[in-house]
C-alpha cells in the first residue's frame, strides 16, 4: 500500500536561530527535501532611503552605519565617495589611506563574522564563532581608538575622516598585523579539512557561473563561482590602484568554495593593509568642506567592494542641503536573489547552510 504524502509549508523565521536577523523563509518541504522557498523580508524596514531625503549630507552618515551594521566603515566609505563625486570634493592623501586601512580592517571583521556564522550554521557548536569573535574584538578595539565607537563608527566624513588616527593606533595595528596571519592559519586547521564539513558543504548549493552573473551577484559569492570581478581592481576607487593584491577565485561555486573564498580574501586584505601602512603620508585628514554641503544639480553613483559585494550609493542633488533622492544598492539583497535556485532539491539542513554561505545582513536588505 502506498502511503499518501503531501508537501507542507514550514515557516522559518522571522525569529529563528540562524536566519541572521529577522528574515523569514516560507519553505515548502517534502519531508526533509526543500521543494520551494519564498523569502519574506521587510521586518527591519526603517525607511533609511526616505529619511535620507530630510537630512543634511553629513547627517546621513550615521544612517549608513545602520545599513549593514557589521561593516559600518564600508557603508560610510561608499556614501562619502558618492557625495564627493557629486560635489567634486578632493580628499587629502592621508585621509584616503586611513579610509583604505579602515575599510580593509572592517572587511576582515565582517568576513570573520560571516565565516563564523556559517560554521555555526553547519552545527559546529559556537566554537569557531567564538574563536573568530576573539580576533574581531581586536579590530573593534582599533576602531574604538580611532572613532570612539565599537559598532556604528560614524568615522568617515565627506572630504576625509572625522579625526586623525590617535598616537597609539599605529603600534596597535602593527601588533594586530603581526598576529593575524597566524590566526588565519589556525582557522584553516580548525575545520578546513574536517571530513564532516567537507561532506556537508562540498557540492552543496552550487551557483554556476552563468547563474551568478545573471543574478548580478557580487563579492565572495560571485568570485567563488570562478568569476574574477572585484571593483577594487575593475573600477578602482580611492587609492586602491596603488596596491598590489590578487583577486582570488574558486572553481565550483559551492558552499565550501564560498567559505574558502572568504578566508582567502582576508589574506588579501592583510596584504593591502600592510602596504597602506608603509605608504601612508602625513598631512591633513579632512578637506575644507562647508558644514552644509550644497552639491550642484546632478546625480552621482559611487560603488565600492564591501565584504558582501558591490555596495552602491546613488544620489540626486537639487542644490539643496539634502539629497533629492538617495538610493542604496545593497549587495546582500541582490546576492539573495539566487537563493531559490540554489536550495531547490536540497534538505532543510542544506537550506540553512546555503543561506548562511550567502552571508546577508538584514539591516541592509530591509534598509
Amino acid at each position, binding site marked *: 500500500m502506498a502511503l499518501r504524502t503531501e508537501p*507542507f509549508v*514550514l515557516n522559518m523565521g522571522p525569529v*529563528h*536561530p*540562524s536566519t541572521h536577523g529577522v528574515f523569514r523563509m516560507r519553505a515548502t518541504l517534502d*519531508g*526533509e*527535501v526543500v521543494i520551494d522557498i519564498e523569502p519574506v523580508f521587510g521586518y527591519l524596514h526603517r525607511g533609511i532611503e526616505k529619511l535620507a531625503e530630510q537630512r543634511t549630507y553629513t547627517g546621513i552618515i550615521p544612517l549608513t552605519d545602520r545599513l549593514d551594521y557589521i561593516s559600518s566603515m564600508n557603508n560610510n566609505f561608499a556614501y562619502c565617495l558618492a557625495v564627493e563625486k557629486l560635489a567634486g570634493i578632493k580628499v587629502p592623501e592621508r585621509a584616503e589611506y586611513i579610509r583604505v586601512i579602515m575599510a580593509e580592517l572592517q572587511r576582515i571583521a565582517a568576513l570573520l563574522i560571516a565565516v563564523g556564522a556559517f*560554521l*555555526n*550554521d*553547519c*552545527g*559546529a*557548536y*559556537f*566554537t569557531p564563532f*567564538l*574563536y573568530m569573535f*576573539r580576533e574581531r574584538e581586536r579590530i573593534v578595539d582599533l576602531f574604538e581608538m580611532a572613532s570612539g565607537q565599537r559598532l556604528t563608527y560614524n568615522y568617515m566624513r565627506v572630504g576625509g575622516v572625522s579625526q586623525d588616527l590617535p598616537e597609539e593606533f599605529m603600534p596597535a595595528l602593527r601588533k594586530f598585523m603581526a598576529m593575524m596571519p597566524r590566526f588565519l592559519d589556525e582557522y584553516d586547521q580548525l*575545520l578546513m579539512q*574536517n*571530513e*564532516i*564539513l*567537507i*561532506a*556537508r558543504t*562540498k*557540492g*552543496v548549493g552550487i551557483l554556476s557561473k552563468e547563474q551568478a552573473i545573471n543574478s548580478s551577484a557580487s563579492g565572495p559569492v560571485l568570485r567563488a563561482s570562478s568569476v574574477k570581478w572585484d571593483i577594487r581592481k575593475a573600477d578602482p576607487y580611492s587609492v586602491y590602484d596603488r596596491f598590489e593584491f590578487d583577486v582570488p577565485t574558486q572553481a565550483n561555486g559551492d558552499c565550501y568554495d564560498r567559505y574558502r573564498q572568504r578566508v582567502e580574501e582576508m589574506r588579501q586584505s592583510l596584504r593591502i593593509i600592510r602596504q597602506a601602512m608603509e605608504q601612508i603620508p602625513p598631512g591633513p585628514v579632512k578637506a575644507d568642506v562647508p558644514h552644509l554641503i550644497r552639491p550642484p544639480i546632478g546625480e552621482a553613483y559611487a560603488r565600492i567592494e564591501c565584504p558582501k559585494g558591490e555596495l552602491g550609493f546613488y544620489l540626486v542633488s537639487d542644490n539643496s542641503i539634502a539629497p533629492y533622492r538617495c538610493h542604496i544598492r545593497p549587495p546582500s539583497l541582490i546576492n539573495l536573489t539566487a537563493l531559490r535556485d540554489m536550495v531547490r532539491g536540497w*534538505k*532543510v*539542513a*542544506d537550506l*540553512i547552510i546555503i543561506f548562511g554561505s550567502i552571508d546577508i545582513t538584514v539591516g541592509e536588505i530591509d534598509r
Partner: protein
Amino acid sequence: MATFDFDIYSLVGFQAVPPDWPGGFWWHWLFFTVVIISFVLAMVMGVIYIERRGMGRMQSRLGPNRTGPFGLLQPVADAVKVLLKEDIVPSAADKLVHWLAPVIAFAPVLVIFAVIPFENGALLADLNIGILYVVAISSVSTVGVFMAGWGSSNKYSLLGAMRNVAAVVSYEIPLVLAIVGVVLIAGSLSLNQIVVAQSIPFILLQPLGFLLFFAAGCAEINRSPFDLMEADSEIVAGFHTEYSGMKFAMFYLVEYAEAVAISAIITTLFLGGWKGPLLPPWLWFVVKVVLVFCAMVWTRTTLPRIRIDQLMAFAWKFLFPMALLNLFITALQVLAGWPTQLIWAMIMVNFAVMAIMVLIWSRFFFRLGWGRIEV
C-alpha cells in the same frame, strides 16, 4: 579470562555490598532505588557543570563562574530558573500526549541503571541478560521523544522527532553488534560478569568496538555530531521546541541522564567498570564515567553536525560493515582460544586493524554527500 585478577577489596579494606546482602529482597530494592535516583540526579548536575565549564574553556571563554564558588551552583540556578517558568501547552497540542511524553522519556533512563554495577555485585538486579535489557529499555525513550514531537503539533518538533526515530532505528544495529564483541570475550550477558571478566579493560581488546559503540551511542542519545534531533541552527530545538517549565526540565534531565547512562555503559563494557587500584571501586566508576563524558563534550565543541541522509549512510555504510568485521575478527580470536601469553600481540593486532579501518573509512567519508539518499 581471569588471568591476573587480583582481589582489590583486600587491598583497600573496603567490603562491597555482596549479592546475598542481609535484609532480604525489599531492603536491597529500596536501598538501590534510592542510590540510583540520587546517583543519577547528582551525576546529571555534575556533568551539566562539567559540560558548561569545559565548553567555555574550549571556546576561549570562561563559562559560568558567578553562581557559587567556580560557578558550581550553576546547575541549581538552571533548575530553579526552569522550574519558575510558566508551563505553556500549545492550544493545538494533543494535551495528554504532550503531558505524558517527558515522563515516558525519563523513566527508561533511570531503569537502565538497575543493571549497572557500581561495585562488585553492588547493583539493583544482576540480570543474566543485563546488556540485552539495557539495549531494549534504552530504545523506549524514543517513544517519549516521538510523542513529544507529535503531541506538540509543531512542524519543527515533528521533523526533530522523525529524525530521532530514524536515527535510533539505524544506530541500534551497530550498537548491538559492537556489544556482541564484548559479550563474546566475556562469555556473559550480565554486566557484573562482564566487569569481573575484564582482567584488562576491553578497550584494549576491542578498540574498534569501542569506537563503534561510542559513535553509535552518541547518535543514540543525540550528542554532537549526531544532534540532528535538536539541531538548534536548523529546527530551533527539535522535539522540545514547545516545552517549557518543568516539562522542559524533564527533557533536559533526560538528555544528560542518557549521556551519563551511555558513559556508564561504555565504562562497564570497555573500561573495566569499577576496577582499578587504590581508590574505592565506586569512585573508579564515577571517575571513568566523567572521563567518557568529557570525551563527549570534546566532540560536541569540535565537530560540525552531519545531515540526516549522511546520518543514515554513516550507520548503514560505515558503522554496520565495520561492526560486522569487528565481530568476525573477535569471533576468530575467541575461537582460537585467546592464548594468554599472546594477549599483548592480540592487542597490537586489534589496534592495527582499528587504525587501518578508520583511516580507510575516513578517506571515503566525504563521499557521504554524493549519495543523495532520500529519507
